[in-house]
């Protein structure tokens, strides 16, 4: 097992290098001159040239890449062109904000998705099965952007149940310590504010969680159906065992592998969807950070932002692989 984990970790190295090359080359294909974007239309040619020189944009791309990697290995993500602050200092709060949002979305998605899938399989061809699968279909094809705006309109503007954007009550903020605001509010001894933070999380959480929720529900259902048809479940049911334990304990455990895979993949994909959700809900996360950086051609931030997300994606995949081992001892590690 340990050697498996080590081997699995070593395999990450070529993956990460490949990823960094891809990210680096894509970013250099973005049209537009960063010097022009930074200094504005009115800048003179000399000042733009001086800035390009200073930013190293005149070097050949492979030199820029090598310089970047050398610094990266020393833990230096570079400085933001726009704010001139080291990205490693800047990115922390954004990561925390995205983490908080992603965890909540995934919790909603997994909870609703898995249960809807199990019950749909259990009560196959019932009205519940049909409705939830129709919703899953709608959910998969729902544009996040549109869903977010609709949520804001219905739940914030018309019903006034929930705040439409931001992370906490702007009029009465709590000091950021961990930048996970639920925890920060509790540290500050403000359960009322923690509740406000939770309310702020609900709409973006649903917007971000809807697609994975639908996918998880469908995956769980089909995986469950397969297991439920197997002999041992039929036997268990025939023995007169209570229905619910059979479904949740015996069947679900064996249906779990594909579901975990999907959950892992979707968690990674969430980070991509976060760009849209964070923009609509003014959520100051990594998605927003990259979005703003793109509009300012802030190359180092785009690079590092995407790279950080990619690393998280790879790590999630690693965790999923390791989870298989726990779930299903039959999986062979050689």
């Amino acid at each position: 097992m340990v050697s498996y984990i080590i081997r699995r970790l070593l395999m990450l190295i070529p993956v990460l290098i490949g990823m960094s090359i891809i990210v680096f080359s894509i970013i250099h294909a973005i049209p537009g001159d960063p010097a022009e974007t930074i200094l504005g239309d009115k800048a003179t040619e000399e000042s733009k040239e001086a800035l390009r020189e200073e930013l190293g944009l005149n070097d050949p791309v492979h030199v820029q890449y090598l310089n970047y990697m050398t610094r990266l290995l020393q833990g230096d993500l570079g400085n933001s062109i726009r704010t001139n602050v080291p990205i490693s200092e800047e990115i922390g709060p954004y990561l925390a904000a995205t983490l908080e949002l992603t965890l909540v979305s995934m919790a909603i998605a997994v909870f609703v998705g898995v249960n809807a899938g199990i019950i749909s399989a259990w009560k196959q061809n019932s009205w519940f099965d049909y409705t939830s699968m129709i919703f899953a279909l709608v959910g998969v094809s729902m544009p996040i952007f549109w869903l977010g705006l609709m949520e804001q309109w219905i739940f914030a503007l018309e019903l006034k149940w929930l705040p439409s954007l931001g992370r906490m009550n702007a009029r009465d903020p709590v000091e950021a310590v961990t930048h996970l605001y639920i925890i920060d509010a509790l540290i500050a001894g403000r359960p009322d504010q923690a509740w406000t933070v939770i309310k702020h999380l609900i709409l973006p959480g649903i917007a971000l969680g809807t697609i994975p929720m639908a996918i998880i529900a469908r995956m769980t259902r089909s995986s469950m159906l397969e297991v439920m048809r197997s002999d041992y479940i039929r036997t268990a049911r025939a023995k007169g065992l209570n229905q619910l334990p059979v479904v949740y304990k015996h069947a679900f455990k064996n249906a779990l592998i594909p579901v975990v895979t999907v959950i892992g993949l979707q968690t990674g994909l969430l980070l991509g969807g976060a760009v849209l959700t964070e923009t609509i809900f003014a959520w100051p996360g990594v998605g927003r950070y990259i979005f703003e950086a793109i509009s300012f051609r802030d190359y180092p931030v785009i690079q590092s932002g995407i790279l950080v997300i990619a690393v998280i994606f790879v790590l999630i995949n690693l965790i999923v692989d390791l989870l298989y081992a726990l779930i299903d001892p039959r999986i062979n590690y050689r």
Partner: protein
Amino acid sequence: MKKRWMFSALSLLLAASLGLTGCGSSSQTPDASKPQENAQPAESGKPAQDTLIVGRGGDSAALDPAVVTDGESIKITQQVFDTLLDYKPGTTDVEPSLAESWEMSEDGLKYTFKLRQGVKFHDGTDFNADAVVHNFNRWLAGDKSQFYYFVSAFGTAEDRVIKEVKAIDANTVEFTLNKTQAPFLRNLAMPAFGIASPKALEEKGEKFKEEPVGTGAFVFKEWKRNDSITLEKNPNYWNEGFPKVNKVIVRSIPENSARFTALQAGELDLIEGVNPDDLAALEGNADLQKFVRPAFNVGYLGFNAKKPPFDNPKVRVALSHAVNKEALISAFYGGLAEPAKNPMPPSLFGYNDAIEDYPYDLEKAKALLAEAGYPNGIEEELVFYAMPVARPYMPDGKKVAEALQAEFAKIGVKTKIESPEWAVYLEDAKKGEKDHIFMLGWTGDNGDADNFLFTLLSKDTIGSNNYSQWAHDEYSKLVAEAQGELDEAKRIDLYKKAQEIFKQEAPWVPLVHSTPLLAGRANVKGYVPSPTGSESYEAVYFE
């Protein structure tokens, strides 16, 4: 238990999908006529009358006014810093601020400023002549990459307007100039020249741009990047009775419609960047009010005057008659622009309102073309450069170009629209080799006519900002003379004459001066948007 949870989640989904079906038939804007009793956000128990929450599209880059070039940064520094002189609210006229009065020497080379007494920086240190000298010396020692606006307003080290800044006594500062500069006082009023605390500059160093210290109406409190900037009332503010609110929170919300929704829900008090599409909902909602920023820009159609057929002024005038500005404004600007007849906005001094614009008249246009020697229109297919990016003065260049292309076709002028990438576009237009017709625009830097009439149209600026390559000797002489002329009345006269020549020669068709739309809660009072794009919130209060 789990089941019940699931049902509630599913019903939420259902509610969302109901919105989907409803959306097909009705518009997305909420029913604005419905009275909304609960205007305050659900989470704040009592009405927050002492905190102003402003929503805008993007975050600031840095908060040291001297180093930034973007409007979003200036919007904050405007609150934290004072300049020696300021613009009167809603205009670009100069009024006293940290300098109470000033005198200019006969030859225009010495300015003496009497400073306001008893003013303190937010860190408790005194504002005085030494502080002013310290700030100007800091800028004089820097170059364009450090202090962009200082260098563009007062020249590079080799060719500088300001020679020396000296403290005469604690409350008197004397500026010695190398040469006269008519817009000198207007330049000093630019927010970029906010006076910073010398002590804080020294102690904070690089950190100063994140923790600014000035003398302004509001004290910088906290900056959560891409989220919000919090400012608090300066209790020792020199302008007695101001600011009216205790706290200002400026939030970054990129999505225009999300910002508008939050305003309607009462989570924001004031927002910038309202979509023209939301104008009807805004005007129909009694809880909201509309603000319009005075026009401070010009969007124009330029003719490349060094290439035939546009080397002939008659052809340029002919095409001017083929542009229907009102139609463009209602189709592409949502009505939020004024038709332009001069190359500068009417809010600037020296604007010649006596000028009569060329009416939209296709028959007249054809007749003029015939007079110019093109009775059957122009054979050659002309290259029409359409802006590939959106700007406040040109929301959708390609569509505007297509509309104009159709008009020009009616008078026998065939055009081919090209829209290269923005950097290439600017470079090509600067050289004037490829295009016949192009579109561009300009937003004023300092509230002076010189910044439009000289910068964009003098023959001396061909190769930089005179993209129409129009070299008119008399016009260029007038605007150059106006630049050095210190007698205000004479300057105005020179600019009015220049605008007459511009109209006769028609190197451009000035299209629009766009007026950005803002919105606020109905109880927000005392807010006056500035043409320059940033204004102080010190006079804002709630009713």
